[in-house]
C-alpha cells in the first residue's frame, strides 16, 4: 500500500470514530460519552509513555552515578547530592504528565456541561 493511501485510510478511520461530533446539538450526552472515552484512552497512553520515558532517563542517571561512585568512592557524598537532584527533576516531568492525565480523566474540561 502506498503511503498516501495509508494516510487517507487513517484519516477516515479517525474521522469515523469522531462521528457523534457531526450530530449538531442533538447528541449532547453522546458527545460527553465520546469525550469521556477519548479522555480515558488519552490519559492512559500519555501516562504510559511519560512514565516509561522518565524511567529510562532516571535509569541512565542512576547508572552514571553508580559508575561515578565506583570510580571515585571519596566523592560519594557529592555524587549522591547530584543524583538526588537530577532524579527529582526528571521525575517532575512525569508528574506533569500525571497531573494532565488526572485533569483529563476526572475533570473532562471539554465535555458539554449538561
Amino acid at each position: 500500500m502506498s503511503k498516501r493511501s495509508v494516510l487517507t485510510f487513517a484519516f477516515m478511520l479517525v474521522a469515523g470514530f469522531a462521528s457523534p461530533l457531526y450530530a449538531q446539538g442533538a447528541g449532547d450526552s453522546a458527545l460527553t460519552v465520546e469525550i469521556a472515552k477519548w479522555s480515558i484512552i488519552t490519559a492512559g497512553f500519555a501516562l504510559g509513555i511519560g512514565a516509561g520515558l522518565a524511567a529510562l532517563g532516571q535509569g541512565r542517571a542512576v547508572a552514571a552515578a553508580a559508575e561515578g561512585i565506583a570510580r571515585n568512592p571519596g566523592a560519594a557524598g557529592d555524587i549522591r547530592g547530584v543524583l538526588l537532584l537530577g532524579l527529582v527533576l526528571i521525575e517532575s516531568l512525569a508528574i506533569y504528565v500525571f497531573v494532565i492525565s488526572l485533569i483529563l480523566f476526572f475533570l473532562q474540561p471539554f465535555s458539554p456541561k449538561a
Partner: protein
Amino acid sequence: MEKLEHPLWIVQIVNAVLGPLVRTVGEAMGHHFTSHDVIPVHMVMVLLIVAFVTALCVFVRSRLSVESPGTLQIVLEDGVGAVRGLLDEWIGPKGHQYLPLVATLGLFILLGNYMGLVPGLTSPTSSINVTLGCAITTWVYYHYQGIRAQGIVGYVKHFWAPPGAPLWIGIVYFPIEIISHAARVMSLSLRLFGNIFGEELVILVLFSLVPFLIPLPMMFLGLVTGLLQAFIFVLLSIIYLQGAVAVEHHEDEHGHDAPSGRQAPAAA
C-alpha cells in the same frame, strides 16, 4: 471526581467552632460561600500545622539549655544546621539571612506531607492551593532578594543578557528567561502537588480494594517521597536564590570573581 472519602471529624469540629465567624466576616466582604464547609479541608490542616509548630517552638524555647540539651533540642538544632549548611554550600556565608523563610518552608512542607499518613488527617500539600501558595511565596521572595541585592536596573540587566555576553543577545535571551522564570512557579507547585496528591490517591484506591496490609508499602514510599519532596523544594528555593543574588560579586575589587559554592544545573 466523586467523593471517595468521608468528611474528617476534625474539619467538622473546626467548622462548627469557627465557621459562623468566618461566614459572617466573609459575607460582610461580599464573598459567597459555595460549599457547605466554610473553612476548606486544606485550610484546617494548615491551621493545625501552625498551631503545632508554634506549640513546639514555645515548648523547646522554654527548655533551652546550652550545657545539657534535651533530645528535641538536639534534633531541631540538627535540622537548622542542615539547612544552614545547604545555604552555606550554595550561596556562601551571605546566605544565612535567607534561613528563616527557607527553613520554615521546609518544615511546613515536611509536616504537611507526613500529615497525610496519619488517619484522621490529610495533607494540606495535596491541594494545589497550598502548593501554589508555597511556590508563589518562594518566587516573590527570590525576586525581591535579587532586586534588593543588585538594584532593579542591575537585576533586569541580568535578564537581558548573561554577564559577559554581547548586548544584542537579549532579543533572544529575554523571552527565554521570562518563560523559564514563569515555569519555575508551575514546576515548584505541580511537582509537590502531583507527588503528594498522587500518593494519597493511590493509598485511597488501595484501601478501597484491600484495607489490610496492602497499603503499607505505598505508605512507606510516602514517607520517603515526603522527605524527598520537602528537601527538593528547599534545595530549589536555595538554587533560585543563588541565581538571583550571587551574581553581584562579578566585579569584586579583591579579585574574587565567583561566589563561593557550586554552580547550579539548569533547573527549570
